[in-house]
C-alpha cells in the first residue's frame, strides 16, 4: 500500500459540504499546504472542527476569509476578526466548545465511546440543551462524540508506512484527530524509510494514516 501522494492528488479528495478536522493551535501544527490546496479547490459549505480559527492569514484563517466554511466547531475565534464578522452577518455558524471538552469529544469519536461526563461548563451557558448527571455528588455534563469525513494533519516526520512524529507544541490536536475521521491526510516536513522511527517514539501509528504528502517548503 503506497500512502505517499503528490500535491495534485490532494484537492480532489475534498467535496462540498464535508466536515474537516484540522490539527493546530493558533496555526502551529496546522498543515498549511493542505489548507492552501483547499483554498484553491473552491470546495464550499465546509464544517471545520479544530481548536481555533487562528489569524486571517494563519492556520485555517484563509478558509474562513474565503467564505468556503459554513460552520466551525472550535474553542476560540478571538484572534481572527473575520470569524466574528461572518458570524454576526449570519454567514457562518460558530459552535464554541471548551477546549478540553472539544478534544474529549473528538477522542470519543475516534475511540468508539458514546460520550463523556465533564465538569467543565456546569453552571454556564455551555450546559444548555445537554444532559446533566451527578456522579459521586458532583455534577457533570454529558458531551457527545465528534467525527469528520477528513482529518488534515501536520507532522514533522513520517516513515513510508505512515508512522508519525510531531515537533514540540505542534502536536496538540493532531494525534487525537487521527482517530476520528474516515480519511486521514498528513502533510510532513520529512519522509523517512520504515524502521527509521523507533517504535517507542511513534506518536501516531501508521494504521491511522491514509495519505502522506511532503510539505512544499521541505
Amino acid at each position, binding site marked *: 500500500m503506497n500512502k505517499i501522494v503528490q500535491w495534485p492528488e490532494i484537492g480532489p479528495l475534498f467535496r462540498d459540504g464535508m466536515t474537516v478536522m484540522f490539527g493546530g493551535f493558533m496555526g502551529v501544527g496546522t498543515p498549511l499546504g493542505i489548507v492552501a490546496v483547499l483554498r484553491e479547490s473552491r470546495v464550499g459549505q465546509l464544517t471545520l472542527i479544530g481548536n481555533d480559527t487562528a489569524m486571517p492569514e494563519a492556520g485555517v484563517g484563509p478558509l474562513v476569509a474565503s467564505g468556503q466554511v459554513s460552520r466551525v466547531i472550535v474553542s476560540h475565534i478571538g484572534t481572527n476578526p473575520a470569524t466574528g464578522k461572518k458570524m454576526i452577518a449570519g454567514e457562518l455558524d460558530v459552535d464554541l466548545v471548551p477546549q478540553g471538552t472539544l478534544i474529549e469529544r473528538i477522542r470519543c469519536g475516534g475511540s468508539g465511546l458514546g460520550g463523556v461526563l465533564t465538569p467543565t461548563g456546569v453552571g454556564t451557558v455551555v450546559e444548555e440543551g445537554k444532559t446533566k448527571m451527578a456522579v459521586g455528588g458532583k455534577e457533570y455534563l454529558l458531551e457527545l462524540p465528534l467525527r469528520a469525513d477528513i482529518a488534515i494533519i501536520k507532522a514533522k516526520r513520517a*516513515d513510508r508506512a505512515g*508512522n508519525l512524529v510531531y515537533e514540540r507544541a505542534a502536536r496538540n490536536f493532531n494525534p487525537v484527530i487521527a482517530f476520528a475521521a474516515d480519511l486521514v491526510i498528513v502533510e510532513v516536513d520529512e519522509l523517512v524509510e520504515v524502521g527509521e522511527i523507533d517504535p517507542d517514539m511513534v506518536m501516531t501509528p501508521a494504521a491511522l494514516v491514509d495519505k502522506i504528502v511532503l510539505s512544499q517548503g521541505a
Partner: protein
Amino acid sequence: MEAKEIIARRVAQELKEGYVVNLGIGLPTMVPRFLPKGVNITLQSENGFLGLGPLEGEPMPGVVNAGGVPCGLAPGAAMFDSATSFALIRGGHVDVTVLGGLQVDEEGSLANWMVPGKMVPGMGGAMDLVSGARKVIVAMEHCTKEGETRILERCSLPLTAKSRVSLVVTELAVFSISHGEFVLLETAPGISVETVREKTGARFAMADKVGEMALA
C-alpha cells in the same frame, strides 16, 4: 489435516492486504502462517502495539504478546499505552478480530469468556474486541470434546458480546450471520450439508451456491 489447521487456513483467506488484525489466543494465532502470498497484514496486540511479529532470535525486553510471551516486532511497528490500544480497538481501527469461541448463536452473539462454576478467567480484552472490531470472525471447532455443538439458536453461556459476529469458521463449515440467521457458505472437503446439519444446533439458510472451503 488437523481441524485447527483447516480452520486457520480458511480464516487466512478472509484477510486482505493492509488489514489491521487482532488475533485471540490459541487457534487464531495460527492464522498468519497461512496468509495468501502477497497479503501483508498488521497485527495489533492489545497490550499496546501494532506490528506484532514472530519471535526471531533472543527475546527483547518488553516485546511480548498479549499472553506475556516474547514475540517480535514487524518493521514499522508502533508502541502505545493501553488507553490508545483500546481506542484503536473500540474505535473501529481494527479491521478484523479472529477469536476462539465456546458458543455462537444465530443473533451473532458470542460466548467465549466464562463457564459458570467452572472457568472464570476474566474477559481481558475480548469484550472490547468483539464490540469494536469492524469484522468479528469466530474460529473454533464445530463441537466440544464431548460432541456438543457450539453453534446454537441462543448461547447458553454468558455472552462476550451481543450481535457482533459476522463469520464463523469451523473444521466442517463456514457460516455468515445476517439478520438473525446463519447462512451456510461453504462446507469442508468431503463434508456433506447433512453432516453439518447434524452437528449444528441452529437452523441455517443456504447460500445461493454453497462452495467447498478453500484451504490454499
